[in-house]
């Protein structure tokens, strides 16, 4: 009898509380976020990031978490404005010499580091010397090694001279964070405290970094670019996106990147979320493609590549994989920028045309409906890395190609093996991969025929003399409208040759709590984050946080 009482106690202690909790649901009052609010300095913005930043010195770090945090701490000479045009950052103005080889940057007056020491052209020169120093473990040195001579005629002037004119030069100066000479001159840049305790010049400075948990930035009141409206930016490290989403719905974080299912399915069904969370959609930074190993038959035959391009329904892929949250593209550039050739359009979905082209190339259907040439079926393997969207893309394509009699198999491989075992060795048929939509149109490293060595990026083996010439020209031409023409032509060749099939450029989706104001909607080409120093959280809407003592 006694034992039964024990068991009953167990139920009371462990099970019952769960029921009690589930019944005690309180109804919180509804706040109207659409009212006009006054802006004022203060408040915390909490966002979630999947990975921890590794190193806040951008030239050494390679991960996106690091560059996201470092971008709030450091400045470059030049930046992109909301319409993706060049705009002053630390440099107030810049001048390009007549022979197009020298750029003279004029720094803004009165710049200083977060510790109060003046920021001068000596810091810029120091940074350039650092990134071109062979002992610095940076993968990004090559662009800056093209500078033949760098000098500082006076504390506000920084002058670089290139061996020959280099069109992407300005773009390279948008991504080089200027570092403080007075702190780093005696440090080993590869292994320094500075990577976790940086001193910068931008709107925010590092406040606290709890390893593996959170990084807190505080407004930098020494910033001459102005003081941001939100006092603290807190990045919480939450690897799992479902957990991030739970934290968002529980009001514990304000900003996160969401996926198409959350955007298209979860939010429309949840009135309570719509009431407090705003969704933003902007063009993402990359595109996904199907790439052929051009050195392998039958992909060395342009008719086969074009045929497969006609046989894939890009709209279907976008609908199936991204739930419609993407765009088809026909140039390797960000939609809406000047580099897009307006006369090009993606290959339409035309299976009949595909079959015609394949027949021209010598393929005939056998009794089982499989395309055959010289007794061999048209059969290949699509490989991709462990990336859910790419896997699903491959499956949709597999189905469409099966419809016209192509036998396709899919293999998904872990990244390091994928690159070393397949890409570097050229041992593959077809890949599904992505490239970033770079803001500068130069794509020499990806498409020039000289870039095919192991470890280089023209691993598909694309080679077209006209394209080579255009890529060389485009690197030297600084006149923007002439440059535009060059890359429009380049895109046309690329689309015709079809070494890759452009599948989609996906949107980047963000969810932001409505307490955050000052975000531009619809998002400008540079995305919603470009003016995050102008975001604010009105006083009545701020969280009640454990206050500082």
């Amino acid at each position, binding site marked *: 009898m006694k034992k039964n009482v024990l068991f009953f106690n167990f139920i009371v202690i462990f099970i019952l509380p769960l029921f009690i909790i589930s019944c005690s649901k309180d109804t919180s009052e509804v706040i109207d976020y659409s009212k006009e609010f006054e802006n004022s300095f203060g408040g915390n913005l909490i966002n979630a990031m999947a990975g921890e930043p590794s190193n806040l010195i951008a030239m050494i770090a390679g991960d996106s978490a690091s560059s996201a945090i470092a971008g709030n701490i450091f400045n470059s000479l030049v930046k992109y404005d909301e319409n993706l045009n060049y705009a002053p950052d630390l440099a107030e103005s810049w001048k390009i010499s007549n022979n197009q080889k020298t750029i003279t940057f004029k720094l803004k007056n009165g710049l200083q580091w977060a510790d109060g020491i003046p920021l001068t052209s000596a810091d810029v020169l120091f940074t350039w010397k650092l990134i071109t120093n062979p002992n610095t473990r940076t993968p990004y040195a090559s662009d800056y090694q093209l500078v033949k001579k760098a000098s500082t005629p006076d504390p506000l002037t920084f002058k670089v001279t290139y061996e020959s004119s280099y069109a992407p030069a300005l773009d390279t100066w948008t991504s080089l964070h200027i570092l403080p000479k007075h702190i780093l001159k005696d440090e080993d840049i590869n292994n320094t405290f500075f990577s976790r305790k940086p001193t910068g010049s931008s709107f925010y400075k590092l406040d606290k970094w709890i390893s593996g*948990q959170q990084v807190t930035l505080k407004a930098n009141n020494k910033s001459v670019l102005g003081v941001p409206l939100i006092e603290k930016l807190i990045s919480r*490290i939450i690897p799992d996106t479902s957990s991030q989403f739970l934290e968002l719905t529980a009001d*514990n974080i304000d900003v996160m990147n969401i996926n198409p299912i959350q955007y298209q399915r979860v939010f429309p069904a949840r009135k309570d979320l719509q009431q407090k969370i705003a969704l933003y959609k902007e063009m993402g930074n990359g595109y996904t493609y199907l790439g052929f190993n051009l050195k392998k038959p039958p992909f060395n035959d342009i008719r086969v590549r074009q045929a497969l391009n006609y046989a894939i329904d890009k709209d279907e892929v976008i609908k199936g994989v991204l739930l419609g949250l993407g765009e088809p593209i026909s140039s390797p550039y960000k939609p809406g920028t000047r580099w897009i050739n307006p006369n090009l359009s993606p290959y339409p979905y035309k299976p009949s045309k595909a079959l015609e082209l394949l027949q021209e190339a010598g393929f005939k259907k056998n009794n089982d409906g499989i395309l055959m040439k010289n007794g061999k079926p048209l059969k290949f393997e699509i490989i991709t890395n462990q990336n859910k969207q790419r896997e699903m893309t491959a499956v949709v394509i597999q189905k469409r190609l099966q419809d016209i009699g192509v036998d396709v198999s899919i293999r998904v491989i872990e990244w390091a093996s994928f690159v070393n075992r397949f890409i570097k060795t050229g041992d593959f048929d077809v890949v599904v991969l992505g490239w970033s939509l770079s803001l500068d149109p130069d794509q020499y490293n990806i498409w020039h025929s000289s870039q095919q060595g192991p470890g280089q990026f023209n691993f598909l083996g694309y080679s077209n003399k006209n394209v080579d010439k255009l890529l060389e020209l485009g690197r030297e031409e600084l006149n923007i409208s002439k440059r535009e023409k060059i890359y429009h032509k380049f895109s046309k060749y690329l689309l015709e040759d079809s070494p890759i099939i452009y599948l989609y450029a996906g949107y980047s989706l963000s969810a932001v709590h409505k307490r955050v104001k000052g975000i531009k909607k619809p998002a400008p080409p540079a995305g919603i984050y470009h003016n995050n120093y102008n975001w604010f959280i009105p006083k009545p809407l701020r969280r009640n946080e454990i206050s500082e003592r």
Partner: protein
Amino acid sequence: MISYLIKRILWMIPMLIGISLVSFFIMHLAPGDVTSSEASFNPKASEESRQKLRELYNLDKPVIIQYGLWVKRIAQLDFGNSFASHQKPVLWERTDKSGNVTKGLIQESLPITLMINLLGICIIFSISIFLGTLSAVRQNTWVDRSITLFVFIGFAIPGFWLALLLMYWTGVSNQWLPISGLHSLGYQNLSNFDQFTDLLKHLILPVSISSLSGLAGISLYVRNGMLDILHQDFITTARSKGLKESKIVFIHALKNAILPLITIVGLSIPGLIGGSVIAESIFAIPGMGKLFYDSVLMRDFPVIMGILTIGSFLTLIGNLLADIGYAWADPRVRKGLVK
């Protein structure tokens, strides 16, 4: 006894060398190295710079030479620095000339994982012993059957799924417990006691989830051990002596039934430093599981080897402790050893 101990400890040296050798070579069988991360697949990053990095880390040398270099360092108890761009020390903090301290990766992650696992083990053992005894005493009744059902459900249920459900239930719809992380924002401003309760609140879900799957094995172990003992002669003697049933169960039977658990405790010592990648990702806990998983994906060889070495060392120590513990608790075993 002493000579036995010395023999056992000396045996650990060749064992450790063998384990590290096998681990090192298996690790190098996987294609790729630290320069082939997804982030470095960037047209702005040149192949020359990657080659430079490989030379710097001696990755261009034959594996056997790399192993030699590693052993040379380990012999001085230097586990090296991570290959990642933060270059943190693998094991323990280092201080640079101006007094800035960089904490070691294992040093940062291990205490968190240890704390969760120790709590987990305490909970698993106390609940399992209780449940196991209860089902043995009430063998073949509804109590026994429902306990078995309960522990098996706990064993079979996917942890991540239950975790997300509980997070939603206790964190979103009821705002009763924090959802993820180890601390609330601004916890530094709390008093020490409040910081402690804050931490405990954050640990309730992860520890319960990780304990749930462990209940089945151990409670059944206790149940079966208990059943064996309860059918033995000395229990019958005790009963016929007129001892109280509770005294028989808790003092005479239980003591004997949990003896084999010492082995299990010893064997679970290496498990103490290993975390679950899935649980740590879901609950945003920076523990050993995530550290190891990320270093494998990154091919961060010094970190992988560091964790494996410490893990195998603890396994050997755990085995040794289990044997010693057994000898200490059971006079029959002790006699066997001395012979």
